[in-house]
């Protein structure tokens, strides 16, 4: 308060006569209580000065506004002053209210709000409008945020369900409702187990990989997470030829199943959805193949414990099976993780060499020293083709057979028990044993044929896993035939076969039995009758691998002799034919023979020829070039002759016979 101080005077606190009654009684006012006195004092508070101050303030404000430009005032000065005044007034009012509140006798009768000024009304309205506007803006932001979140959710779900629908085209998608309640994901799983294809006897327990959970990744896309090294693949090899560790090319092909998750996360960002779904398809296919390989191995294990033909287990441990297939060959079948590293390869190799529990001795593992390491490797079929073959026969037996039970082709495997024949494993072992053996037979045949120029080898694919067939042709040169056909007219019309153009020797290998069938050797009947009947006799016999070269050469030599015999007959010379000897009779009982000598070890040629002359009379002069047993004969080594030279020799002998006869 400034300005003049106003003073109000109260009456003296003395009792003044209020009234006198007629009887002279004086009435004085009653004493007021303390509270009444306080109330009366409160009522005397006058706020007019405050109102006057307000009016003055308003006047000054208007003056200030007019002169605002002239003076540089702080823009918040008036607000500060207003707030200070308001604070003062509020303090007074609060004191008053506290006083009234403390005094129970006095209560607030009523409060009236002062009539707001127009600007106050408008400012209140503006504040309310601004508040409401702010509220709506916040709502707007909230809606935008929610919309964005929902759109993202829609996009994520669209990606997820789109991918899931595409996966469902090829794979069995199931839903686990209990898992859905427990976890945040919807509980989708992909079931890779096919339980409709196995009968109860061959029922395999479901693999742990059969059920694959579909998860969400950080971007909302579906993700399939497999534990590392969970996929396993079938691994096949021959002991001593192939190592038990995983070949690098196989490891490279099958590393997708064990790709680390972080690399997949990084790759996913750059990959489109289509590519990612293709990757997922590939991964599921690898798991499917892994499950199939597990089933194959389990089936083989089961068969290994049944006694069946062709199965000879020599070693077994977890995920490893070793079998002997005869002829000193041993193979192993194992299950290895697809994505194993190099350090585990070494461990695997060591384990395979040391930790095997052999059921049989290992002597059969070492092959004979006759063939070197290169030969051993060459004679063995390709391991990948063997793996494929094994998988194929199991697939046909377990899958195709289960579907088409009455249809069993003759070349397929019976596959049930060992009583009726070899099971799957037995069939596989027998096939491999035959394949190895037939390779060795082929080596021997080629060795023989390569050394004899007039022998040709022809392979006949049998398309049977346990049978192989070759034919060795002995071809007579065309020129000789042509010359023969000119000299011969119709003298021997009864000889329908005339001269053969080629002789055949057929070699058939069934499992490990070699059958040789060839024509050209004289039959026993004609030998007894000492007649050269033009019957093409066929010899059939079995032999061992070691004897095969000799047998082939003997057969070829006998065919040459047969041919020479027929050629001699063509020109009218009677000759005696023995197994490997063609004898011409000269005068005076002398004989000259053309003898074949076979030697498979001869690198210059397998068949060598000798000329042996036998003297009919023991007293005649004999030229003794080589006398071995003291017999009256002499021999001349002619060497490894071609058919042309043999024919010429024959003609010389024929002329010798003819000239001698003429004499």
């Amino acid at each position, binding site marked *: 308060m400034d300005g003049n101080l106003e003073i109000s005077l109260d009456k003296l606190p003395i009792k003044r006569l209020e009234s006198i009654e007629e009887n002279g009684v004086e009435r004085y006012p009653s004493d007021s209580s303390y509270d009444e006195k306080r109330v009366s004092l409160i009522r005397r508070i006058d706020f007019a000065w405050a109102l006057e101050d307000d009016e003055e303030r308003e006047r000054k404000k208007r003056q200030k506004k007019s002169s605002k430009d002239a003076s540089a005032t702080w823009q918040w000065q008036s607000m500060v002053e207003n707030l200070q005044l308001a604070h003062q007034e509020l303090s007074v009012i609060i004191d008053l209210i506290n006083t009234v509140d403390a005094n129970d006798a006095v209560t607030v009768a009523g409060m009236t709000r002062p009539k707001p000024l127009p600007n106050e009304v408008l400012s209140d309205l503006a504040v309310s409008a601004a508040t409401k506007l702010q509220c709506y803006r916040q709502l707007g932001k909230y809606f935008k945020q929610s919309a964005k979140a929902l759109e993202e*959710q829609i996009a994520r779900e669209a990606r997820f369900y789109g991918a899931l629908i595409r996966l469902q085209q090829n794979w069995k998608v199931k839903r686990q409702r209990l898992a859905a309640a427990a976890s945040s994901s919807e509980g989708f799983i992909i079931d890779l187990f096919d339980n409709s294809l196995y009968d109860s006897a061959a029922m395999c327990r479901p693999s742990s990989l059969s059920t694959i959970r579909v998860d969400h990744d950080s971007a909302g896309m579906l993700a399939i997470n497999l534990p590392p090294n969970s996929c396993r693949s079938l691994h096949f090899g021959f002991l001593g030829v192939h190592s038990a560790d995983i070949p690098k090319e196989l490891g490279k092909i099958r590393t997708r199943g064990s790709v680390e998750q972080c690399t997949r996360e990084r790759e996913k960002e750059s990959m489109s959805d289509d590519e990612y779904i293709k990757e997922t398809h590939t991964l599921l296919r690898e798991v499917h193949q892994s499950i199939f390989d597990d089933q194959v191995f389990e089936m083989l294990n089961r068969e290994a414990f049944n006694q069946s033909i062709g199965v000879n287990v020599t070693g077994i441990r977890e995920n490893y099976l070793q079998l002997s297939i005869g002829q000193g060959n041993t193979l192993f079948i194992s299950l290895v993780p697809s994505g194993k590293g190099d350090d585990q390869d070494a461990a695997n190799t060591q384990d395979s060499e040391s930790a095997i529990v052999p059921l049989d001795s290992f002597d059969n593992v070492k092959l004979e020293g006759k063939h070197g390491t290169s030969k051993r490797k060459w004679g063995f079929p390709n391991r990948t083709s063997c793996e494929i073959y094994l998988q194929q026969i199991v697939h046909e037996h377990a899958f195709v057979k289960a579907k088409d039970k009455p249809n069993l082709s003759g070349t397929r495997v019976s596959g049930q028990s060992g009583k009726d024949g070899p099971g799957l494993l037995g069939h596989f072992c027998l096939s491999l044993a035959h394949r190895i053996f037939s390779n060795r037979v082929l080596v021997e045949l080629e060795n023989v044929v390569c050394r004899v120029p007039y022998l*040709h080898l022809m392979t006949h694919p049998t398309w049977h896993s346990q049978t192989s067939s070759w034919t060795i042709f002995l071809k007579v040169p065309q020129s000789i035939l042509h010359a023969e056909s000119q000299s011969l007219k119709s003298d021997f019309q009864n000889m329908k076969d005339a001269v053969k153009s080629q002789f055949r020797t057929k070699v058939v290998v069934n499992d490990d039995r070699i059958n040789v069938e060839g024509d050209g050797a004289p039959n026993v009947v004609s030998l007894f009758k000492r007649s050269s009947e033009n019957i093409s006799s066929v010899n059939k016999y079995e032999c061992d691998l070691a004897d095969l070269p000799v047998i082939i050469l003997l057969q070829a030599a006998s065919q040459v002799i047969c041919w020479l015999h027929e050629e001699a007959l063509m020109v009218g010379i009677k000759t005696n034919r023995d197994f490997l000897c063609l004898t011409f009779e000269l005068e005076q009982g002398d004989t000259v023979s053309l003898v074949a000598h076979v030697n498979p070890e001869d690198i210059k040629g397998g068949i060598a020829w000798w000329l042996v002359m036998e003297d009919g009379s023991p007293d005649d002069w004999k030229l003794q070039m080589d006398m071995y047993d003291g017999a009256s004969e002499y021999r001349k080594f002619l060497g490894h002759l071609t058919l042309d030279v043999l024919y010429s020799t024959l003609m010389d002998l024929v002329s010798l016979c003819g000239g001698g006869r003429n004499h």
Partner: protein
Amino acid sequence: MNKGTGAGTGPTAAAAAAAAQKQKTMMQRVETDIANIVDNFTQLVNVARVNDPPVRNSQESFMMEMRAARMVQAADSLLKLVSELKQTAIFSGFASLNDHVERRTTEFNQQAERTDQMLARIGEEAAASLKELESHYYSSAQRTPDTA
């Protein structure tokens, strides 16, 4: 399981009734949610008027927040419904799925046959080539013996 085509009894009728009931429930949910959204939005627009007592404005602002939350909740519920429909489509679209599976099976069988034919042809050609090569080889003057 022999599913009869007659109506009234049997698993087909029960499945059809269950499907109809489910469809009805879903339609009700859709209608409820959409009505919820429309109603709350209408209320939001209605309280745009600025009232004199500021306390009413505060009350209205709380109400607006509540209604906005309800709208978003209803939208989320609709989206969940859509997800359920998608899942139902995945697990119940047997007709199209079976057609697709049959088509793929036919394709794969044909591919298997073609592969078998191709393998047989390859075998035949290989046999013919082998025969020709062998005849050429053994007719040639030079033959390299395969020694150990």
